[in-house]
């Protein structure tokens, strides 16, 4: 039974890291959001699997909270506050080309592997991969933050970093106090809410949500 959970968790981790890479390179903003939802579901799946073998209701609660906040609430906030035209667009002006971004993501994957291996000794017995791949996911999301220029993929990058951190967290501290989880679960939708309002306002003014072009000053007409 444990072997099955182990293999299944490994598969979930592999798919998790794939979603992290996909969020860096996918062009449609709507698709980016969908991939983020998938990633959050995979995170909660990993929490459920780790919570199953040495029974830990904290991890189950974490999984449920993750689904509620990141797979339901945040997408809903972002969908309803940011205009639909933003999601239909393709982002063509990434600061790094897709192949270069992909190769950087691989490099970060290897960095995560190298950094995570020594930490694995401290991790939960069931999940030697959570630490390495969680750190890799965090670094790749950081790359996404640097590569993407639109507001929505950038906020998704921040949330993706948080997902990576949680992936490490559920392996290191299976009995993480629930109050911290709940605090984060309330914190993150609030972040999404604020950024979405901001993006909506910026879109009204300038007709785009490219955060990259906010760096230069512009005279108001």
């Amino acid at each position, binding site marked *: 039974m444990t072997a099955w959970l182990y293999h299944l968790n490994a598969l*979930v981790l592999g798919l998790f890291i794939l979603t992290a*890479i996909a969020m860096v390179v996918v062009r449609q903003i709507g698709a980016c959001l969908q991939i983020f939802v998938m990633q959050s579901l995979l995170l909660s799946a990993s929490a459920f699997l780790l919570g199953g073998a040495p029974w830990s209701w904290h991890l189950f609660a974490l999984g449920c909270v993750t689904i509620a906040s990141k797979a339901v609430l945040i997408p809903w906030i972002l969908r309803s506050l940011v205009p639909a035209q933003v999601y239909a667009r393709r982002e063509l002006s990434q600061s790094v080309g*897709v192949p270069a971004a992909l190769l950087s993501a691989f490099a970060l994957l290897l960095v995560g592997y190298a950094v995570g291996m020594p930490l694995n000794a401290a991790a939960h017995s069931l999940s030697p991969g959570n630490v390495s791949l969680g750190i890799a996911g965090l670094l790749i999301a950081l790359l996404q933050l640097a590569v993407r220029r639109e507001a929505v993929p950038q906020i998704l990058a921040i949330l993706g970093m948080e997902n990576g951190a949680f992936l490490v967290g559920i392996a290191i501290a299976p009995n993480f106090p629930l109050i911290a989880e709940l605090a984060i679960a309330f914190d993150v939708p609030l972040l999404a809410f604020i950024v979405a309002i901001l993006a909506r306002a910026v879109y009204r003014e300038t007709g785009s949500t490219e955060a990259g072009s906010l760096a230069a000053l512009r005279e108001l007409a």
Partner: protein
Amino acid sequence: MAEAAALNLWQLAFILGLSPLFAGILQKCKELVASKRGPGIFQPYRDLRKLFAKDAVTPESSTWIFRFTPYVVFVIPLVVTLLIPVLTDFPLFFAFVGDMLAAGFILAASGFFFTLAAIDGGNPYGPMGASRTRMVGFLVEPVIIIVLFTVSFIADSTIPYIVQQHWVHPLSNFFTASHVLLLIAFFMVLLAETGRIPVDNPSGHFELAMIDESKALEFSGPALALLKWGGYMKFAVLAIIFLNVLTTPWGLASTGTIPAMLLATALVFLKVLALVLLIVVVESSFAKLRLFRITDFVGAAFAVAVTAMVTELLGL
């Protein structure tokens, strides 16, 4: 001895005889999905018979490569057939002559000759398609190599018969993360290598957009028939590697008796049929990518393959 030879011949006959049928079924299903009637599933056989009865025309400027290539393209999938477990799960004569890497290189030789012949034919669209095929080929190659290396990490071998046994005993090997990710990567490679839709449109005949098809523009008569048949067999061989070695290593004959072989033939046929239906779904639901987006598709396959390798190295 005689039995092993007979089994080998049986496998060759399976690939040789049924590969056009797979192409026909794929075409028919695609037409059905598009609410068209389409040609019957035996149309590839009729095409081949018609082409074999015709005279061949060769361009004046062409060299021996042009005349030699159809035979190479026809024979090479058959050579690969000898290396892989088509119907039996016990090794036959040539099982240890070459591994999966060798099979890849042997198939690459046929692609090499086809490329040369396309340029040799003198048709302006030939070199265009040839260079595009080379582009797809060299993008796909690192993915294949990473996939095979990961396979060798997992199964400690790249001999297809040994790899296949590794997934079967014990069964939990089959569900490892790296294996599942490998399957995804290999499936994407399969689509790219056989000129299927996200990469190339096999039914499109607009010269400027053609990749695979335009290489055969100058061929006619029996030469074209051999090239087509070789193409069908290449698809069948890659499908067999995908199914029997990596995805579903079950349903093969474990003894050389005639009932067991008949059963294995039927089961492998059904497996290929299922793969064909999967490809129909993919081809009918995706659009062909623009030429410079192919790198993205193959890059995604590469990402999957690298992730498979990393999860394997992590010891997951």
